[in-house]
Structure formats: C-alpha cells, structure tokens
C-alpha cells in the first residue's frame, strides 16, 4: 500500500501573525525527510500540524488515500496513527519502560500476549530489553530517548514524526543515535519526518531535506543536490555555519 504523506498549501497563522506561509511538501513512502532550519522558523509548528496537535489555517494534509485535514475534515491526533518522539522525550515518569512502550498497544485494545511480544521485539531493536522493568528516573538521557523511540515505533506507524529528538543528548551520544536512527529507517522501511536545526543530523540521515526559514521553504532536495547547489542567500549563509 502506498502511503505518501502529502501537504497541499498548508499554512498557519496565530491571530494576525503568519507563522507558516502556504507550503507543499511530499514525504514519499519509505523516505526520510528532514525539516531543517534555525529555531523559531516554524518547522516544529509544521510537524505539530501534521500530527494534529495544532490546526492549520488553510490547506490539506493527506496520508495515502485518507484526508487527515481538509475542508470539513480534521481527524484528531489519536486517530492519525503517527508515531511521535518529542524533544523532551515525554517518557511517563509513573510507568516503567515496558509500560511506556506498551501503552499505544494497550490503548488500541491488543491482547496481553501479543502486546508483550511486540514490546519486547521493539525493545530488542533498541537494545533495551534488560531495562524493561526500570522507571524513567533510573535511566540515562540516552536510554530515555530510546524508550521514547520504542514507544513511537511499537505500533509500526506509517510515518514516524521526530521533533529535535537528539538536542538534549551529549555529542558522543548524538553521533551514536544518528547512526542508529538511520539503521532503523533502513531496517523498518517506514517513512520518517525529522525536525532539526542541526545540519549534520539532516545531511547524515535524510534522503530529502527541506530547508525552512521564517515560515517559508527556502530550498528542498536530496542532501547531495543541496550540498552541490545551495540556493543563494539564506541557504548558503545557513550552511556556512557549522
């Protein structure tokens, strides 16, 4: 089944202030798209519009053949079936690692036996099986991040949304996680939409990069295309900073 994520003319204003100008983006099935831009450029807002946590002011959001948002349609976030990883991890402190990862399956009414199998499989993927019984305060930042990733992946969503997932980790751990997320993407074949302000993350992992500044798309293309021909102006300036 093809499940491209398509954005048509999606825009967002808060009151009179336009945060996102109308934009078209396609996240092709199985691709890894990175939204790259400085902080405050609107990339997180765009991700939250797709997730359903905010409502667009205009446009359409379509996944495969389902309209998620459009004229007269606004499917709530819990029915969009995306996986999502937040910048602050948002791992629930009152549940174990197992409980956190199990939650999406439990909410969907999956039987206990199947649930346990799926959770342990996903934790194995993240090298976290041994920590299943721990509570978040007994985990390092990196382990909390893996828990959040496992929770986002456990229901095998068509698209995984990631909001600056590595910004709270130290440099060494970031490099390790970059490799791991890329490997996961290859192994699972799901689509990933990844928001970051760190060009290294974008260029190392993504198959397509969308550079955003002040609510507008400045350039989009494969990492190679952008590296070879950065658009003059903002993109060239932005990429020249390490």
């Amino acid at each position, binding site marked *: 089944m093809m499940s491209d994520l398509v954005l048509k003319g999606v825009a967002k204003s808060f009151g009179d202030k336009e945060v996102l100008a109308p934009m078209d983006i396609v996240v092709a099935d199985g691709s890894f798209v990175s939204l790259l831009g400085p902080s405050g450029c609107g990339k997180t807002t765009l991700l*939250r519009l797709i*997730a*359903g*946590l*905010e*409502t667009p002011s205009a446009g359409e959001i379509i996944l495969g053949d389902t309209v998620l948002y459009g004229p007269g349609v*606004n499917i*709530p*976030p*819990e*029915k969009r*079936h*995306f*996986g*999502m990883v*937040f*910048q*602050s*991890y*948002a*791992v*629930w*402190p*009152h549940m174990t690692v197992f409980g956190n990862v199990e*939650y*999406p399956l439990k*909410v*969907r009414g999956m039987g206990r036996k199947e649930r346990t199998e799926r959770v342990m499989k996903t934790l194995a993927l993240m090298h976290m099986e041994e920590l299943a019984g721990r509570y*978040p*305060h007994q985990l390092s930042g990196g382990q909390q991040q893996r828990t*959040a990733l496992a*929770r*986002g992946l456990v*229901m095998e969503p068509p698209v995984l*949304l990631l909001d600056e997932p590595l910004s*709270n980790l130290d440099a060494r751990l970031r490099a390790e996680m970059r490799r791991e997320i890329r490997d996961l993407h290859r192994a699972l074949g799901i689509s990933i939409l990844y928001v970051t302000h760190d060009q290294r993350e974008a260029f190392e992992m993504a198959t397509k990069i969308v550079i955003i500044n002040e609510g507008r798309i400045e350039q989009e293309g494969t990492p190679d295309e952008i590296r070879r021909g950065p658009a003059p102006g903002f993109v060239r300036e932005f990429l020249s900073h390490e």
Partner: protein
Amino acid sequence: MFADGITNAAVVEALVRSLSLSLAVALISGAAGCLVAWLVTRSDIGGGGALSGLFSMPYAIPAYLLGMAWIVLGNPAVGAIKEIFPQSGVYGFHGMVLVESTVAFAFPYLELKAGFERMDPSLEEAARMSGARPWRVFRDVSFPLLWPPMVNGMCLSFLYTLSSFGVPAMLGMPVRQFVLTTLIYSQFKLGGMSGIASGLRLSLVLLVLAMLVLALSNWLVNLQRRRGGAIMGSRVSRPGLVRLGGGRVPVTATVWIVFAAAVVLPWCALAFSALAPVAGNYSPSAWTFRNLEYVVNLPEFSEALVNSLALSISVATFVVAAGFFLAFAAVRRGSRAARWIIEAMGVPFSTPGTVIAILLIFISTWVALAMGRFGLSFDSPLVWMGLAYALKYCAVGARMLAAAYRQVHPSLEESAVVSGATTFILLRTIWLPLLSRTVLAAWFLTALPMFTELTMSVLLTGPGGATMGTVLFQLQEYADQPSAAALAWILLSAALLGAFFMRGRKAEEILEAK
C-alpha cells in the same frame, strides 16, 4: 467536658456538621475546579482567556457578601427565586454548601491550573499520539501526575470551609444549624468567663482539625515538589489544545451560564436589593438611593469607615514593610532567624480566625486583670483587632516578597554593592523600585481582606470598635435587607478594586501568597 451551658450533643452535632459541610464543599469545588482548570488550560473552549482571568478572581472578595446576595435570591419570604429552593429557602445546609462551594472553587481550580501550566505538555501529547482519546489521556497521564495538587486544592477548600464563619452565620444560624465556628461565636455571646472558656475548648477542637488538614496539604505540596523534575518541561511550549468539536458550543455555553448563575446573578440581585425601596419590590421604576443614603448617615457607618480604613491601612503598611525587610534578610542574606519567622507566620495564617480571636480575647481579659491591679485600664478593641489582623495576614506579604526576591538575579544586587551601596541604600535604591509592583500587590492583598474582615472583628468588637464587617453583620441580623445590601455594595466595590490589582497575575503567584 463542655458542661457549662452547652451539651455534648450540641458539640457533636456542630462537629459533624462542620466536617460534612467541609467535605461536601471539598468534593464539589474539587470536581468543578478540576473540570474548569482542564477546560481552560487544555481545550479550545470559547473565551478561555477571559474565563481563566475571571475564575482567578482573588479570594479577596469575602464569602459573606455572596451569602447575603443569595439571601436576596432565596429568602423563603421575599426571595426573588425562592421557588427553586426547599421550604427553608437558601437557609440551611444546602445553602451553605452552595455558597461555600462557589467561593472555595478557586482553591482546587488555581492549584490544578498551576499544575497544568507547569507540566510539560508533551507528556499528554505523547499519549494522544499513542492513540488515547482526551478522557483516556486524563485518566492515564494527567491524573497520575497531577493528583497531589488536585487533592491539595480540595484540602484547602476543606480548610477554608472549616474555618469560615460569615456564611454559616448568615445561612445556618437563622435556622439554628450550628457549625464549630458559629457555635463558638454563640457561646461567646452568652458572655462571662464560662462563655470564653467553652469557646476556648471548642477552638482547640477546631484548631486540631485545621492543623491535621494542613499537615496533609503540606505533605502533598512536598510530594509534588519532589516529583517536579520529571514532570516539568525543560522548555515551556504551548500545549496542543483538545478540540471539543461539536461539543464546543454547548460546553462553552454551560460554563458561562454556570458562572453567570453562581456569580453574576447574586451580585445583580444584591444591586437590585440595594436600590429597592422595600425587600421584594425590585421594579426599576421604584429604584431609589435612599438605602445608600440611610446607611451612609448611620452613626455606626462613619465610625466603622474610619476604623476599618485606619486599621487596614496602618496594619497592611506595617505588615508589608516588615515582610519587605524580613524577606530580604531571609532570601538575600540567608538569615536563619528571618527564614524561621516567615515560616512561623504560616501558623496564624492557617489558624481559623475564630480561634485567633478567642485566644486574643482570653489574653486581653488576662491583661486587663493584670493592669487593673495597678489601677490602669486598657480596653481598646481596635488594638486587639489590629493585632489579630497582623497575625492573620502577615504571611501574605512576607511570602509574596520572598518569592519576588528569589526571582531577581543576584548580579543586580552585586553590581550595586560593588558600587559602594550600604544595605539601607541598597534596599531603597535597588530593591524597592525593582519590587514595587509586588509590594503594591501585597499591600492590596492584605489591606482589602482587613477592610472587609468579619470573622475576628465580630468577636473582638466592643464599644467604639465597629468595623465595616460588624456593621454589615448587624444590619443583616436586624433583617434590614436593603440597607445591608447597600453597604455590601460598598464593600464589594472595594473588593473589586483588589481584583483589578490582581489582574494578570499568574495562578502560581496567587498561590504563593496563600
């Protein structure tokens, strides 16, 4: 044990009524407070911003004014909507629950609102992204993480109701339904040392109950503080609001209608009553300012106005000034003694006003006896009232200012010290201007409740000691409704002035003061 003129059965009855009233109010205000706090912080309810502000209306508006307003509406003889009440009208247990819940609503609401505002919204959003519907998110994530402030809000409601005097005096005493505070008052009014003695013993019961609930409340606050790190967001982000969808219009309408019925309607009734020539005749053509004129010309009125103004202005100024220096010593100089004093101020603040007043009466009797031995006499009720006000409200100023001192970066002070400023110059030129808004807010937050104070004043008053609260109480007792309503409007205007000064202050700041 309570043998003098009071039966054990009467004490037990009052105790049971106090407890069941407080429990009912805690549960009702807790449920309503939770619901509205969630709607205002987490849903797209219409006019959420305005609602949030209105519901944060300070606790400065005295509950007994609302009680009076409800008497206008639900008086069994001439009440404007007496039909909706049982035979006794608004008088009785149900009426007390109604009015106390309306006022106590602010405690769980503000506690939980602050809890929601402090919590990292991603925790709830992650649950929604996992497929949980809003109710499930509340059950599985919000409630487990926020139950301590929720229960603490209910504890504060309970404590507030247990200590309250005005509402049970106006709605319970006329039908001989006593709670602990009103029983203490009626014992005291019997007069003599035996009245004071049984009042003292009853006060002890009330005090022990209040301290037990307070201990539970403190435990909950500390529990949530310890959990804080895991729950608070590293960066404050705007939460994604739950869309109420088709339910948005009915939910919005219901909340506004309930607000109007619980708050706006009684205030309007009070206004109409103040303008009515006789109780029960509310036709606009008959409106008159005679009541207001009559009240203002009462000899007690000018005495009360002068007393209340003098007391509230002088005591509030003293208390806030003391708080300004104490908080400076505690926060910026790390003085243990100052910190201990501020900590200790919390005790009278949480002690029911009735208990403070009875203790002071006991002490004043003892002082009068001692002085009498030297042929001196000293019986100014105003001095004891001022002392009572200072004890009761000193915590407000000190706590608000301590919080404000803590928020300012030390470098601001250090640069002045490097420039050669002495402590006095430092306080005058750096801290006073920096904290001027907080000082002003703290002043209003202490002066206004003193201006309208009833619970302690009514016990401590005496010849020459009338205050706004006691005069109003008297008018109400004489069943002179239009005059009482006119006076109530004067007090309400003062309280609204306070609400104006509290505008835009965050739930956390208001809680800090409490």
